[in-house]
């Protein structure tokens, strides 16, 4: 049995994934996890791995670790439609990242003014089961958001 701590990629407050107003995330089709109502402006890597996907608009990214473990961070809902407005990419797709490495800078006010919800799902889309998850306020790159058992 191996355990992987997935750190919070965002500062903010933890919200149950089931209450996210997007059925693909709420019904865990993209994987189990939690959502964060962010209070900060930077999304960081929650784990060590390869940044296998960083969307062109910067609104979401995915990191792959060994053994089929994958973590996806999706900044806001339906934010692909903003085509990058309100987001600024910091990292480069394909690079290897450590927990806490900055990936994207975002501006909540711009995103909300464009009519999008900024509630951000963080899910385990690959192997492993979540055995423990945080609640309340979390700090990016330092608090454990959830722990995976592989």
């Amino acid at each position, binding site marked *: 049995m191996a355990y992987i701590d997935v750190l919070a990629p965002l500062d903010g407050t933890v919200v149950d994934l089931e209450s996210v107003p997007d059925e693909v995330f709420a019904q865990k089709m993209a994987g189990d996890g939690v959502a964060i109502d962010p209070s900060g402006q930077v999304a960081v890597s929650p784990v060590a791995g390869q940044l296998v996907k960083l969307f062109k608009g910067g609104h979401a990214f995915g990191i792959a670790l060994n053994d089929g473990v994958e973590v*996806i961070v999706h900044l806001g809902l339906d934010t692909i439609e903003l085509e990058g407005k309100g987001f600024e990419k910091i990292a480069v797709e394909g690079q290897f990242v450590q927990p806490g490495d900055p990936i994207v800078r975002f501006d909540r006010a711009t995103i909300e003014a464009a009519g999008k919800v900024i509630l951000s799902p963080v899910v385990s889309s*690959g192997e492993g089961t979540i055995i423990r998850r945080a609640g309340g306020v979390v700090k990016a790159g330092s608090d454990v958001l959830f722990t995976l058992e592989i």
Partner: protein
Amino acid sequence: MENTVERTVTLGSKSGLHARPAAVFVQHAKGFHSQITLTKEERTANGKSILSVLALGAEHGDQVVLKVSGSDAENALNKLTRLLEGDLG
């Protein structure tokens, strides 16, 4: 009975294969016994891994080769083709 079938499909999803359509596609793909891959140009993704499908970077209108191998290959090919050609969101 083992069977490998493939088809070239044009992506219908208006914003391409981003998080939501990839999750829906993979959820359906996982329901089949067969092995499923998607190939865009030289890059091949495991159809049962969301991150692998996302990394393909398939956009609206792109042609991808859907390849299915296994006992329920025909069924999977037809179902998944319809999903990819339609608007998965």
